[in-house]
């Protein structure tokens, strides 16, 4: 990679169940806290899933909640980077449409129209990414690629989702993908990635935004660099719409492509920010992929997932995970996987349990594997300027 087209992260914004800033997300993860809880308005509706990761900073009855959550994360990232939207391209996923009950009944808001609203103040390229749960990672990866190829100087990248509505909770419950309520359950432990007692993910609202730009531009502006993006890969399982390949082949392929793009050997990875949804098959496939990717190094490389703490924010998930991966690069610290206490048979990895790991991590792989078999991975590295 030439010095001129190195791509760095200079600003972040995050709204999640752990708070309304990236710092609150990071500190919550380091403390091993779960932001997932019982959602009172869902309890009264009588549905079978009443837990989730709420973004409390934006009132749930705002009908433009999809736009507001995204806009706040985007603005925070721009302010942190001291950038203007008009200087940046825009790679963003607004996820799925939102369906809510308003004062006058049914309210449908299109994800496409939300993107159009958000994007108009940005310069070109403006691309709406739609790759299911891999969207956030793919948005960051696309921004990285376009900047590296000289097609943009700076981009805001990420994603946002409003998922905590009965529409999606009932739908995902039908797919047996979310953790449904049971007598005596502990809401904050609804999502237990890789754990022997895992029973699906907790849906969540959220937004994650990152400002990416060339290192040259960042230096010229005197911007604070959080981490460098050095590789991106994507793939499709081409296997099944509802479940991953048993051996995680599609996941492995996208991670290999990201490492190859970065020019980094698997053994050089210091930590993994895993997709880690807490679904039975998804976790098994991911572990199989990571173990094949790392060969014997899987016993050494720490793996952490954050959906046990904030839930699965779909289009935002990969972007929020990229932010945490960047914090890991900057600090060397790998947060624990919240709610993982006893790894299941077939889920053995070098999991970070209970406490954060001061691993001195410098190079981090962050991967997302979406429904329908759409996968994306990025490689981040500590900024060495």
């Amino acid at each position, binding site marked *: 990679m030439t010095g001129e087209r190195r791509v760095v992260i200079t600003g972040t914004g995050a709204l999640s169940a752990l708070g309304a800033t990236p710092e609150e997300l990071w500190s919550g993860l380091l403390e091993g806290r779960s932001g997932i809880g019982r959602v009172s308005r869902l309890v009264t*509706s009588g549905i079978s899933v009443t837990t989730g990761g709420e973004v409390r900073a934006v009132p749930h009855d705002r009908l433009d909640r999809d736009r507001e959550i995204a806009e706040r994360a985007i603005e925070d990232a721009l302010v942190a980077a001291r950038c203007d939207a008009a200087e940046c391209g825009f790679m963003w996923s607004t996820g799925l449409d939102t369906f809510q009950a308003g004062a006058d009944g049914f309210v449908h808001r299109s994800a496409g*129209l939300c993107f159009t609203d958000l994007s108009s103040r940005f310069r*070109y390229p*403006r691309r709406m990414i*739609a790759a299911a749960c891999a969207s956030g990672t*793919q948005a960051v990866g696309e921004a990285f690629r376009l900047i590296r190829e000289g097609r943009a100087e700076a981009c805001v990248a990420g994603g946002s989702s409003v998922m905590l509505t009965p529409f999606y909770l009932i739908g995902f419950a*039908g797919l047996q993908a979310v953790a449904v309520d049971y007598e005596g359950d502990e809401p904050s432990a609804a999502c237990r990635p890789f754990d022997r007692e895992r029973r699906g993910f907790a849906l969540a609202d959220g937004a994650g935004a990152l400002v990416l730009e060339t290192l040259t531009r960042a230096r010229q502006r005197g911007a604070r660099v959080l981490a460098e993006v050095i590789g991106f890969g994507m793939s499709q399982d081409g296997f099944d*719409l*509802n479940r991953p390949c048993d051996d995680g082949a599609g996941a492995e392929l996208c991670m290999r492509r990201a490492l190859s793009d970065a020019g980094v050997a698997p053994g050089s990875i210091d930590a993994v920010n895993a997709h880690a949804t807490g679904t039975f098959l998804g976790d098994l496939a991911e572990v199989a992929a990571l173990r094949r990717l790392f060969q014997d190094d899987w016993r050494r490389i720490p793996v952490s997932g954050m959906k046990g703490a904030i839930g699965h924010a779909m289009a935002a998930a990969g972007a929020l995970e990229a932010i945490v991966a960047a914090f890991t690069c900057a600090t060397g610290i790998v947060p624990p996987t919240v709610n993982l206490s006893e790894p299941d048979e077939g889920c053995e990895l070098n999991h970070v349990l209970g406490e954060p790991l001061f691993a001195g991590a410098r190079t981090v792989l962050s991967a997302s594997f979406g429904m*329908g078999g759409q996968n994306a991975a990025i490689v981040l590295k500590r900024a060495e300027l």
Partner: protein
Amino acid sequence: MTYLVAAALKNDLAAIRQSSPEVWRQVRRYNLPVQLTLAAAFEVTNAASADPARVAVVSLAPCQPGSADLYRWGQVVTAGMVNGNLGDTRMNPTQTLHAVDNLAMSAFAIRYGNHAYCLGLGGAAGQAWAGLEAVQERLAAGQETEALLMAGDQDCAEDWANGTGVALLFSASPKPYGPLGQSVRLVAVERQRRPHPDSTRPHAAAGLCGLLSALAAHDREGAALSYAVPLEDSDGVDAVTVRMEVSR
């Protein structure tokens, strides 16, 4: 270099069902936009692709909600919320698939065992031109020799019946484009920011259909085609011009 080698446009599901039972068998479980998109994609791929497993895929998700079924189901759920009881509400799991935002891309990959480059774009207004640029970028990168751009949408959220699916297959080397019998090179997608953003038509496929119509009407060999994208098919922010070159 980026050459258009084949294109297909589908808007009649009954005709697909009648004339192509094998295609119908493969797409029947999906929702209208995905059915039409896949039927178009299968047609161009089977007719003109050298290796469907290695085609780079750029796919636009529908802008409308996944399907009319989902939309209606949303109304049912909302009514239940207003009445304070959703306990008995169940969703047809097949229809949950309709919410996968790039279902056509996944289904195409499964059909052909395709593990090549893939870019899932949303169906927001004007994203078709971003897709066209992505195709050009990818073929310029040289890792694939063919690229597919596909899109589909239903005409309005509540309507099962009317929609459009479109697919365009591109090659990095010159080949005749079927309908014209001449090679069609995608030269550039040019953009100029409009003074003020304007309203547009959120439809994933309509813009590409307009481009194909303009190409079909272009019969002057050797002449450049400069297609000024109508405002309604743009994102309302940029004025877009697609420049193509038709030659023997």
